[in-house]
């Protein structure tokens, strides 16, 4: 139990003591990050196999015509919107998970969301034919939800659950599902072929309908997450202290788990499992905002899409005319940023 409290306590300290973070500073940061996001969005519409000048992008957006540039820009809108949704969902889900489990290693997939989605996709393509599974959101989503439900029952049961039990329950379910996925994919080559492309995660070539399918989940998840930010601050002090402060620990944890699941399951179902975003973005953001969740979550909401869309744009450029999938680039782009953020961290005493 003392595992994570030490780490979060340190986050809490580095958040408040060494640098006094004033309201105006944080607000200015938010403005800057918003500008950066706007820039990434425009780049995502403009850059690709056929580059389009920025003024023309603007024209295509405000006064739609039916020229060639219009078609190109339109074709890039779905993946841009997807990147926006997925980036925001994963980053917020990651911050939420790290707060809930009081574990700096908290990854949105920790409660088995990705493993459940993968198991579901693999199982359906094994038994109902390859191809049917990878395209449908409604295959990945139920798997993710079932996996999290099992983790929660195992980890918390009727009680409020301790972070460690939940984390271990997540490890258990992930291990078993990963074994199932390996067993199926390694014995059925056709399934493996579908799976290896699904497992990378890409924004390209998705049906625009996917956006409408996952949008409700993302919105509910985000609202829930932002509403919980105050309670999460209390939870960082430990269960007992949080309860003394009037926070309903069990309910916060349940709602938090629900929000993470909605967000992460929607993102995974839409574009496949994109790792690292949920883990890295909150840490990078924390080095700017400190550990106050009321700032951390909105920052993550905006910073997540910057990483995902930025990686996507880069993926279109570096091996032109081909593309590299976004799931591969995010790690290469995000890791150096994470390293810089870690080196900024105050040394533990």
């Amino acid at each position, binding site marked *: 139990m003392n*595992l994570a409290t030490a780490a979060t306590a340190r986050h809490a300290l580095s958040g408040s003591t060494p640098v006094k973070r004033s309201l105006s500073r944080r607000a200015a940061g938010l403005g800057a990050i918003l500008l950066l996001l706007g820039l990434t969005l425009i780049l995502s519409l403009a850059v690709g196999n056929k580059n389009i000048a920025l003024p023309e992008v603007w024209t295509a957006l405000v006064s739609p015509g039916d020229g060639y540039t219009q078609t190109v820009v339109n074709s890039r809108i779905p993946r841009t919107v997807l990147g926006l949704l997925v980036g925001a969902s994963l980053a917020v889900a990651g911050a939420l998970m790290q707060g809930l489990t009081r574990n700096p*290693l908290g990854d949105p997939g920790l409660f088995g969301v990705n493993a459940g989605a993968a198991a579901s996709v693999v199982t359906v393509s094994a038994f109902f034919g390859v191809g049917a599974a990878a395209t449908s959101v409604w295959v990945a989503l139920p798997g993710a939800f079932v996996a999290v439900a099992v983790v929660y029952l195992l980890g918390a049961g009727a009680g409020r659950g301790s972070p460690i039990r939940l*984390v271990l329950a997540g490890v258990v379910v992930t291990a078993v599902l990963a074994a199932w996925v390996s067993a199926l994919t*390694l014995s059925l080559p056709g399934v493996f072929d579908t799976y*290896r492309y699904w497992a*990378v995660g890409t924004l390209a070539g998705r049906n625009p309908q996917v956006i409408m399918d996952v949008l409700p989940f993302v919105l509910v998840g985000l609202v829930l997450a932002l509403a919980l930010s105050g309670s999460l601050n209390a939870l960082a002090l430990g269960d007992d202290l949080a309860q003394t402060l009037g926070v309903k620990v069990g309910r916060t944890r349940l709602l938090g788990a629900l929000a993470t699941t909605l967000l992460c399951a929607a993102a995974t179902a839409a574009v496949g499992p994109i790792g690292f975003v949920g883990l890295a973005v909150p840490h990078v953001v924390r080095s700017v905002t400190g550990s106050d969740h009321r700032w951390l979550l909105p920052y993550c909401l905006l910073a997540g899409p910057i990483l995902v869309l930025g990686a996507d744009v880069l993926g279109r450029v570096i091996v032109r005319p081909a593309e590299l999938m976004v799931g591969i680039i995010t*790690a290469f782009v995000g890791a150096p940023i*994470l390293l810089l953020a870690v080196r900024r961290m105050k040394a533990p005493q």
Partner: protein
Amino acid sequence: MLRQAPCVAPATGPRIHTLRLGQWLSFRVRTRSVVVGGILVAAVVVIGMLTISLGALGVAPNDLLRTIFGQGNGTDRIVWGTIRGPRLVVAVAAGAALGIAGTLFQTVTRNPLGSPDVIGLSAGAAAGAAAFGVLWTGILPQPVGALVGASAAMALVYFATGRGFSSPSRMLLVGIGVSAVSLAFVEFVIIRVGREEATVLAGYLAGTLASRSWEHAATIWGALLVLAPFALIVSRRLQLVEMGDEQADTLGARSGRTRLLAVLVSIGLATAAVSVVGPIGFIALTAPQIGRRLTRAPGPGVIVSALTGALLLCLADLLTQQSPVPVQLPVGVLTALLGGVYLGFLLFGQYKKGNI
């Protein structure tokens, strides 16, 4: 981290004995740990005998000892000498090495998710194996590639933290970055190459004990015999470090050095295991947790974790060899399944008792 303070209440005092050897050596011995350890050893021996004896090729239990000492008949000698013997001997040592690596790492990082895998050791090994085994073939053999990848990943973590391995929280975060990059590279390789190559690679990445030789056995046992004593020494000091650095320093445990030594031993053992059996997941993660729950001990039980790891890997290997499924699955698939299910079972039992 995972201390269960109520379990070591003074009332249980009589069950903890002190074993003295001369003036300088003394060990505190918990009765329950000794019993659990004994049972685990017996289980490993039984599983080992089954591994050699079962199936059409099996050596009859009566001939087992004679075969091991080189006096069996021809078939038996081949089965023990080249097919099943090395495999079993490698499994015992690799499982033990991973168990120890996991328990030390989890204690140092105070995190039940901590294992050398988390900071990119397995991912680095996988990337090395993918690079030298599939992309640039012919430069290095795949296991050596894995070793190079794992070492490179650890070197990267060491230098990127700016403070070496002395700060666990930094090490974990940096390690995640290194791990993510390595895994992204592996995914890139998997979607770039043809289906056949990708399947073979995925099989290797799940970890395998197939066709191990006595050289593999010598490598892993050598590493285990050299590093395990350090693990035992450092684990006693780690218990003090867990109380907090200042108290530990006052008691002479020198927290910084202890932590560094523990991490180095852990990484050394895990690297040795990875280079011999490939990146087998979940043993380093689950073995210490299972061992802790079996002994109900507060501290890092190096011996019990080692035995649990060995048992997990041997059992998984036995099931792989004797499974009725036509496709022989890599042993890593089964360790994940066994370890996961059993840990879940333990968690559920503790939940019913209202324990953490």
